[in-house]
């Protein structure tokens, strides 16, 4: 309902369609407002690839990859609102659960432009979707092979 905020969902759905053999070999979870429950989804996982829209000063549509080391050193500015973002949640998880450090987490973020109420991605984000689809499949291939 907040336009580019749905980019992660769109990317993973498209990846499932384009790469069904890869998708069949991994657990796919669409986390609708996961908040702190993201940590529950990571329990027992050897690796996880997270895909989400992000806010950044970079141009809309820019794709950012953060590896395990970068995610572990996240220092979010604040844990705001009821909704815990990925950065805050992972930061809390790393400080509480030793097992989380054993999970190889990679985040693919696509910089959003329009987070206002409404449906549909902005043209800038839409044009970057296919690139992320290919990047996440390459990441998953490296994990499962």
């Amino acid at each position, binding site marked *: 309902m907040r336009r580019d905020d749905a980019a992660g969902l769109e990317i993973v759905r498209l990846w499932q369609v384009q790469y069904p053999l890869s998708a069949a070999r991994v657990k796919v979870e669409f986390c609708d407002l996961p908040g702190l429950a993201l940590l529950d989804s990571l329990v027992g996982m050897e690796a996880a690839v997270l895909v989400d829209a992000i806010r950044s000063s970079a141009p809309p549509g820019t794709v950012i990859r953060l590896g395990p080391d970068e995610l572990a050193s996240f220092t979010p500015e604040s844990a705001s*609102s009821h909704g815990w973002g990925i950065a805050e949640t992972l930061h809390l998880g790393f400080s509480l659960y030793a097992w989380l450090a054993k999970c190889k987490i990679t985040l693919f973020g696509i910089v959003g432009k329009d987070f206002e109420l409404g449906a549909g991605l902005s043209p800038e984000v839409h044009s970057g979707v296919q690139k992320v689809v290919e990047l996440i499949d390459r990441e998953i291939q490296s994990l499962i092979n």
Partner: protein
Amino acid sequence: MKTIEVPALARVEGEGGLYIGVKDNQVVEIRLDIYEPPRFFEGFLVGRFLQEVPDITARICGICPVAYQMSSVAALEKALGVEVTPQVYALRRLMYCGEYIESHALHIYLLQAPDLLGQPSALDLAAIAPDVVRNALRMKKIGNEILKAIGGRSVHPVNACVGGFYRWPDASSLKALLTELEWGLEAAKETVRWSLILPYPDLEIDYEFVAIHHPEEYAVMHGDVFSSTGKKTSVADYEMRYFEEHVERSNALHGHTANGGTYLVGPLARLNLNNAQLLPAAQAALQGAKLDLPLRNPYKSLIARAIELVNFYEEAIQLIENYLPEGPAHAALTFKAGEGTGMSEAPRGLLYHRYKIDEQGMVRFVKIVPPTAQNLPRIEADLLVLAPKLVDMQQDQATITAEHLVRSYDPCISCATHFLKLRVENVRDG
């Protein structure tokens, strides 16, 4: 001109700002400017089939979707003249237990406790008290698991419908939660003991408390609207005594009583009005706390939430142990034109819905009154009490102090429109 500006109030849901006008070192105006955009749910429900309503209204809030589902189905069932079975009612209460558990555990430990303990956030609290936060997350997870077992997923569950549920959840999936619920009940009792030693600021307000009351149960979905003034109102007559008005500065409406007064809904109101209906373990926790009721300190709503946590863990265990689904999971519906009102106690307070439907079951009118809209004028009034202290503070301290008070309400601005920039400025004459 003296100006204090707070860029954003953290750890509340939604966006808004706080303005404090000062003249001759006296506070002359306090405003909560709610600029979270309006969401138009009432508008786009019109023209929808009534069975779409519970799943759409659940989307109003990620923390209290069950409240929106339950108030909407109650109103629509009233319009159709449908009575649900005792099994459906029990399962709805169990679903609500899950929502209270996840919402209260989140607010107590991750949103308000850091304030009382002088920590900037839950992340900082986790750094100094990791076991406390681990337990909080475990408590919260149990609530989410209840929602998942009944509604298919922990956020925006999808099984509730007008007349009951689309299907009965497996008894085995619910009974599998009992061990964790027993742990949670003990953790909730410990939460009450812990809540009593937290350092609460001194602030006593002479509130009018308003909550649903039922003589035979801790009211969540059934009963009349009770006020601490002694007035009793049926759900159907709610709009005769409780009004909403638009104020220019706010995309959320403001609630007030028929005589223009403010009132308070939420955990303090429920505990003060309904403590006699708490279940035995929660009643014991309340007695052990030796509280001087009614509680009138807004910060101590944390204690009320902790006692309610005990109550809802206790009730969830009872409901699961007695869960024996029989017969159809939902009533057969016969559509007819009509109007119905429904109400339930969301974790943040009273949530009212009214619908008009046509003979095909299509929605023709919707009115939704969320708890935060009812509390907004009361929050402003509380801030006015606090304002003389804020004016004398540095910007950072004023921000934190105002935020603490607002957060103690656990406001959901997104639901109410739907927080916080603080501006304090000296007002010029003319």
